[in-house]
């Protein structure tokens, strides 16, 4: 099951040239761009591992594409995303976030149902991948 998180996630995977164009748009708007990775695809897992520092002073997107490829070399079977921070409010807030790399095989999520008081149901989801310990999931 293809993970649909962040912008462009219902489109086919972006090529490097397309990533370059999107990132250049972010840089031209004055946003700091950062690369992050994780192997826990749960939608509530907001904080992914940082791949290096956010790139505050690179005027060209080639630097970000370069880092994405460096990250792919080491974490080719992880989810990798590019996020852009806007600091004009006085704090860093995310303006754009999109996935640029995903594992070859995405097993999807298990929906568990729990019967509670009366006829109410409680639902929760759990990725099949997270049955295994961190680092051995994909």
């Amino acid at each position: 099951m293809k993970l649909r998180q962040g912008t462009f996630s219902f489109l086919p995977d972006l090529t490097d040239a397309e990533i370059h164009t999107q990132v250049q748009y972010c840089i031209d708007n004055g946003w700091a761009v950062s690369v992050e990775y994780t192997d826990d695809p749960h939608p509530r897992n907001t904080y992914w591992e940082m791949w290096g520092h956010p790139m505050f002073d690179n005027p060209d997107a080639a630097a970000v594409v370069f880092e994405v490829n460096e990250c792919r070399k080491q974490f080719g079977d992880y989810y990798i995303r590019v996020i852009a921070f806007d600091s004009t409010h006085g704090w860093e807030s995310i303006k754009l976030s999109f996935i640029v790399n995903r594992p070859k095989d995405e097993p999807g999520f298990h929906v568990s149902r729990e019967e509670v008081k009366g006829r109410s149901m409680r639902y929760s989801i759990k990725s099949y991948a997270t049955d295994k310990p961190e680092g051995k999931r994909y």
Partner: protein
Amino acid sequence: MTNNNISEDKNKHLGKIDLHAELIETGVEQVLIDLDKSLIGLEPVKTRIRETAALLLVEKAREKLGLAHETPTLHMSFSGNPGTGKTTVALRMAELLHKLGYVRKGHLVTVTRDDLVGQYIGHTAPKTKEVLKKAMGGVLFIDEAYYLYRPENERDYGQEAIEILLQVMENNRDDLVVILAGYKNRMNTFFESNPGFRSRIAHHIEFPDYSTPELLDIGSSMLDQLNYYLTKSAKDAFIEYINLRKEQPHFANARSIRNALDRARLRQANRLFKENNGPVNAEILSTLEEVDIRESRVFSGGIDN
């Protein structure tokens, strides 16, 4: 269908591109004219830049007409004595390459060994990569590049920086242009001990020393910008000064001229206070007299910076 394709192909080759119009349209012409006007002397450098610009323009035209083309290697080395305008030309080069569409942003990142080489194991690679990332889309100018390589210390981290540089120069050729600069002799030794660099750099440009009239012109244009001028006798004294200064050690061409003029302005200010001839006008404030030049240590056998 097949017929159509053939005629289309023919049209592609028959299409015409006015190279001269292209030159003006891209704004390259303007950069070249500015270069001619604002830089005094440096004829061989200007010729090389013109040639490079022509080549790049022709490559672009070939690409448009569908002919075989290959992004030429643009990495360069500038060798010459201090103060011969290497950094200034690098700045123009960045602008030129940007207008020609060979670099996307056209900014210049100037670094020296300190910015690339770390102080402990594992420090160099991230540092060098950080600089390279900053320079992507523009031009990376490495001043006194030979300091990167220190053969006398085999544990020196410079070699690591060189390896990363070479790798990025090769793999990310479309993303950045690297310009190495430094004194001629030391650059030659550097290239001899790092053959990888020599072969990856297509353009070796030499910056000649300035002649006395050229240095005088440079001095005059510097003063012009500051609204100062030399009197006739001061000019003669200044020519004498340049000739004497050139023979002394640590002569740094245009930079020495700038320093000499800065000191002359200092002495002029001092003189105006000492003379104390009542109120001064703009004329007096912007005139450098012969004495302001003659007071220099160079005339009494001393050394100026």
